[in-house]
């Protein structure tokens, strides 16, 4: 079952759309689930489908089309490292190598303690801060250096 919190959020979202266009809220609904659980399971997608009165497959199409939805557990903090041109020119590869060395995970993997997952990301439109990564798609951390990464991870460890 979708939690009451998620249902409340979806209901608020639904007010933005005509009554017979409930499926318009599908992207938000997926986001609410991911925000709460960290990832979106098959059951979650089914439930969103029945909540919004749309085919499961249509939910699945959306969920797989967009990169930022995690369809498997991606750790408490998902680090998405941009590897597009600007970031790569500014050392994205080093960022990835450093994270891999430190956490022992590559793209698409999660640390054994479930704290961190790493994903490859596309340009976030914030190239001036390259190289960069986001944390759970919410927090942008730019101008990454090994020191800065240590600092961020230390912070996350505590929280």
């Amino acid at each position, binding site marked *: 079952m979708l939690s009451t919190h998620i249902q409340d959020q979806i209901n608020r979202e639904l007010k933005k759309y005509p009554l017979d266009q409930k499926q318009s809220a599908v992207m938000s609904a997926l986001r609410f689930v991911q925000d709460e659980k960290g990832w979106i399971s098959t059951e979650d997608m089914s439930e969103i489908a029945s909540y919004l009165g749309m*085919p499961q*497959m249509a939910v*699945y199409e959306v969920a*797989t089309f967009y990169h930022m939805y995690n369809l498997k557990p991606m750790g408490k903090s998902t680090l998405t490292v941009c590897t597009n041109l600007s970031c790569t020119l500014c050392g994205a590869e080093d960022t990835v190598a450093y994270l891999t060395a430190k956490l022992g995970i590559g793209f698409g993997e999660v640390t054994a303690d479930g704290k961190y997952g790493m994903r490859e990301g596309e340009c976030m439109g914030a190239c001036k801060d390259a190289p960069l990564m986001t944390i759970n798609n919410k927090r942008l951390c730019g101008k990454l250096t090994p020191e800065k990464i240590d600092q961020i991870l230390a912070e996350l460890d505590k929280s």
Partner: protein
Amino acid sequence: MINIEIDGKLVETAKGSTIMDAAHKADVYIPHFCYHKKLSIAANCRMCLVEVEKAPKPLPACATPAAEGMKVHTHSDMAVKAQKGIMEFLLINHPLDCPICDQGGECQLQDLAVGYGGGASRYNEEKRVIHPKEIGELISTHEMSRCIQCTRCVRFGQEIAGIMELGMANRSEHAEIMSFVNSSVDSELSGNMIDLCPVGALTSKPFRYKARSWELSRRKSVSSHDGLGSNLAVHVKDNKVVRVVPVENDAINECWISDKDRFSYEALNSAERLTRPMIKQGGNWIEVEWVAALEYVANGLRQITQSAGAENIAALATPHATFEELYLLQKLMRGIGSGNVDFRLRQSDFSADGKQSGTPWLGMPVSEINGCDRFLIAGSFLRKDHPLLAQRIRQAVKHGAQVSIVHSAADDLLMPVANQAIVTPAELVSTLAQVLKALASTKQVKLSDEIQALLVSLTVSDAAAKIAASLAGGKQVAVLLGNFAQQHPQAVQIASFAEQIAQLCGAKFGFLGEAANSVGGYLAEAVPFAGSVHGMNAAEVLENPRKAYLLLNVEPELDMHNPQLAMKAMKDADMVVCMSAFKHQGLEYADVMLPIAPFTETSGTFINTAGIAQSFKGAVKPLAEARPAWKVLRVLGNLLNVTGFDYDSSEAVRDEALKGITISDKLGNLTSGVKFEVVTSSPAALQRVTDVPIYFSDALVRRADSLQKTNDSAVPCVKLNNSELQKLGLQAGDAIKVTQGNASAQLTVQADEGVPAGAVRIAAGHPATALLGAMFGTITVERA
């Protein structure tokens, strides 16, 4: 109308139509993949690029509206260059595996690649690979790497089948057609996606690697299943039916067929086929020559006629039999002096016999359904009983029609339903009466005194009022009665009230024909109240057991309204003659088994629910010793000295039966002289609601292996709503015992909120429920 020019040809085309439509009119072929005339426009394959004068670049013909004075070139340098470019792109990821591809030889991509593709590929990099996924027993997606992402299959699901089971997951290079995480494709129309797929990405599982398309001979035929009479092409290799596909007929099945029409052919080659005549002697079955078997039957019938009278013989035929077979069966029976002949095996209310204005039928041509704006559909498992009629209603709804349902089950029709009254079987009549009452007051029409008196004390439920309001607002209304309504013990009351409702709103009123010859059976006079000798109907010959039964492709325990009663009658009879395509339970109670050719092995005629007679020829020779039933009946007629049994073809039989008859004059849905009755009290006990699941409905489909493995063929459960479950102290999944009459069955219980309180739904047509009694009535449910 606007005028445009395509390759120098002037064409007039409707406003709003596309270049593609105009090209069809002008008979100009524009290559295409994603375009399909029955589906929405996606314009994603770009194969249809053409040059339009004054446009700076090529335009997709399927998505470009024709405009006055437009000049289109489909073969100019610009057009051909664009088409060749697109073909090169399409082939980049498409595996070049035509020699081992099931679609090879009938593949649109292969054909067009010959015309527009290069001799060799310039692409040397790795091709995209998609890992195969299972989507059920009927469609294989094993070579999804061949997909060109035209999305025809996806649009078919959304638009025609009413359920989006396939979709395009992921993005760009990773995009792939698949179903929702490991789920199967369950639509009863799913096989059409195989036809629609322009490449070999979706292939027929039962047909895979059975034959190459150029080895097949194609014979036209007509579906023997539901009452629609879908047009078929039966594909034959080595005198064996290996595939069935639709033949387009816009007035009937358009370009679709149901999965039942498509995959039932597997039964034709089943090991259960009866291949030689057999006689039971001293408790053992021995195979005999036809002559011996038929003489045995003739002698038996003669003896019973002499000793007990011909009225002690009864004939029952499946409504899936051909018109000619039904005609000869009744002619034979009447020839020996018995009027006990019927094909309405699942019907239970025969009180309208002889009072009808004609043969009950759809009440309108099939294609008129699409134009209706209001429907009242009573007592119908619409989607499963009439997959393609449901599809037409779905299209009407898409264009704004409202559907109202009065039924005892709230199955998902895969279309928006405006109003529904889900009531127990006992309340069906009174619910319709309420609709009538509400409608009369909205329309301010005075009903006859008789009806008025019945309606006074009736309280109109909310649902009934809404249905009446919806119907009252319609310009072209259809009131349709389904199989359930026709099988109902008060079928005639249901029909009478429905007819009144139809009259009040100027509606077309019709019956959805259950089987291929539901109309044909009446016209063939295979009913006890027609012809020269009258007799007993399908229920009476069981209630008053006869000494001999002649069964034409009937399996009493699965095909009859009351299997319990039917089996008792069979077991107690002196002689039972089974004319059957299959070995079946008859081996237990019959005395003679005569192997009969199924519809692909005989010529014949089906008269569909709209009264259209469609004749067909045999597609293959009868298997082993099997013979067309019309020939068997002819010989029996001769052996029994019945006059007029020397036909030399089934066409001669048909022509005699239809001599001087215009079918349309014989159709009529009005009943006169029926006393209206409304019972408002319901029995205290649980009432049985019976459906005949789509793949249990006739002898052929029951033996079609692949269909039998689908979810629709699961062993029947007992379905109750949650409140009833609680009352009985049961939980979903519990094993329970249901008892009807003197037998019970052990089944599992399932929660289904679509079953009304006071009712319990148990399917018929399956061995697990074959011991139970009538399809309607009360039934006991208890913990096993």
